[in-house]
């Protein structure tokens, strides 16, 4: 895909905001719009979107998951690309919609067609648009958490690192366990809080071992989980979505920091 020419001079991108960004961290959505616009995309935000349906799918409720998948497909199939500021939600659209709708003669083709045009934000900027003019600097020491679905379903590993590598001042220190799950897992973290706590503690310890002062990642679920645990342990590490840093939108409070209420 990365070697193909863009479908038009100004590709029409539908931004799938994701339910967590919509509810918890609107700045990530605005950062995504800013980046995509700067990269020359014509960005729209279809207002019939809600959630990708992953909570239903991962709970075994395939009927509701299929209904929600159809809703997303209908809202986004007329764009050149669907871009998602989350590896997990992008993975659901790209890999699981075709599975969920595999038996549906009408929808399976549409699901596959949408899947081919769906990308996680950093991999879209890096692999497809090849955008690297970030008008910002970030004089901080960072470490990066690889969200599981992004890493293992979407092969997102180097893309965000290459992008933040272009930002003057930013230092990246890899955690030994950057690829290990943080224990979020959607409903898992509330159904099995004890195991989740043990996992997020391992993650927090790995982050602290890097002595980085900012944790970056591409999935808000993981970041909220880790930020919440850091905060409970009173550890002083700032947590941000990578899009906020790339888009020079780090003036506001970090995730879970005071006064992140109010925009």
């Amino acid at each position: 895909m990365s070697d193909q020419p863009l479908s038009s001079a100004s590709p029409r991108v539908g931004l799938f905001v994701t339910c967590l960004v919509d509810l918890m961290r609107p700045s990530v959505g605005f950062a995504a719009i800013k980046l995509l616009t700067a990269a020359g995309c014509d960005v729209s935000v279809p207002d019939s979107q809600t959630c990708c349906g992953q909570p239903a799918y991962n709970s075994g409720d395939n009927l509701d998951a299929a209904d929600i998948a159809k809703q997303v497909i209908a809202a986004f199939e007329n764009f050149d690309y669907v871009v998602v500021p989350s590896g997990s939600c992008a993975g659901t659209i790209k890999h699981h919609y075709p599975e969920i709708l595999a038996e549906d003669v009408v929808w399976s083709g549409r699901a596959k067609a949408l899947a081919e045009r769906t990308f996680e934000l950093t991999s879209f900027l890096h692999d497809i648009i090849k955008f690297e003019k970030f008008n910002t600097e970030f004089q901080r020491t960072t470490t990066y958490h690889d969200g599981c679905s992004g890493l293992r379903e979407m092969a997102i590993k180097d893309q965000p690192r290459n992008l933040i590598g272009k930002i003057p001042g930013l230092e990246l220190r890899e955690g030994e366990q950057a690829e290990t799950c943080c224990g979020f897992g959607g409903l898992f973290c509330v159904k099995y809080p004890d195991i989740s706590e043990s996992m997020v503690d391992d993650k927090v310890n790995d982050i602290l071992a890097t002595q980085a002062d900012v944790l970056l990642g591409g999935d808000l679920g993981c970041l909220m989980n880790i930020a919440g645990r850091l905060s409970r342990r009173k550890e002083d590490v700032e947590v941000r979505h990578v899009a906020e840093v790339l888009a020079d939108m780090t003036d506001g409070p970090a995730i879970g920091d005071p006064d992140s209420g109010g925009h």
Partner: protein
Amino acid sequence: MEPTSRAFHDNTREALADATLQAALGKLTRGFPVKRRQAADRLPEFEDLRDQARDIKNHSLANLDFYLQQFEARVSDWGGQVHWAKDSEEACQAILDICRNANAKTVTKSKSMIGEEIAINDFLEKNGIEPIETDLGEYIIQLRKEPPSHIIAPAIHLSKEQVAETFLGAHTDLPADRPLEEPRALLEEAREKLRQKFIAADVGLTGANMLVAETGSNVLVTNEGNADLTYSLPRVHIVIASLEKIVPTLEDAATVLRVLARSATGQEMSVYTTFCSGPKRLEDPDGPEEYHVVLLDNGRTDLLGTEFQEMLRCIRCGACLNHCPVYKSIGGHAYGWVYSGPMGAVLIPGLIGMNEASHLPNASTLCGKCESVCPMRIPLPRMLRAWRKRQFERKQSSPSARLILSLWAWVAKKPMLYRFVNRQIIATLGAIGKKTGRISWLPLAGGWTSKRDFPAPAGKTFMDLYKEHGG
């Protein structure tokens, strides 16, 4: 063994509070993954071998009846006998009958997960026959009357001090003040004890890492050589194996062996690999006079043709346990039955039923690490989801969770209503968390806030802000 999977929450709390276990798990999950990675990196064709191994097992499972019959015929040609067992009861009975015919008083045993599955040790003991585990780890947990906590490292949950204590309690004929601090001393003592048992045993019971259809052989892989003494010294050799262990040819077995040890311990090959084919022949200097294979189904054929068929490719290497962050947190016993880790979470509901094991497929973040290291490329996360789907369809998941999920899905299908509801919730949460940026207690979200703060939302949703900004 009696499953305790229903008490999963209690089991996990106990495991998380066990400092010895936590230290052991930390060591195990730091060690094995690195060794596996190094072994895989040293072998350029490792990924291709995984594909080949997967294809071999897929082919075997698609032609299971053919290869099992071929295997039985070859075993008969050698003068051995195959005993077909539908379930644990039949398998235990078949083994007992063979032991009784041999007038056996003691049975030495090399490590076998199927032996654990059918609880053969308890059964033999109840019938007056003494079973003796000869794998060091299995010997230790047999003395402690515990199930294994890892497929290839059954006593991984114990410290060497606990093992010393166990030996002091069990080997009362030895001086009580003997030094047992060093692992070497423990090993020597076990070796001394087991040597007498090897020689005295009437029957040797082994598992099988594979069964080879074209030669009627069983394959045994160990690092301690105990399986070789177990099958070759007694008069009777019994192999207990589940039927999906079959592969068509020796060549196929060799391919699977090339991924097995590398995935398990990072070794290129285990120290001992043995192919046993039938009883001793006239020209053989030693070996058993009788050779029996008890072939166990125990629910496996019910998985054929279902979304769980691919689970039957599993070769019990333990890689998915070694790499699983959930297993790393709670160890093997918390799963409540013989198997554990991702492979256990998929297999256990299939073998003992979803009523017993309902937690196991849910206690996973679906992080996908297991599938990425499985030598047989078993899509474990997909199968965990498949169990959840069955639970949901059969209304076996918790009613309150189902209700909340249905309500959420109903709203998520109505974008205008969805936005209206979210607007209220987010405004409230935003107001609560405005000053501190975090919320330390939330009703209905105790699972979250008992362990972490809840990062406060911005007070307005993206969609509303986007509209305000003229989007």
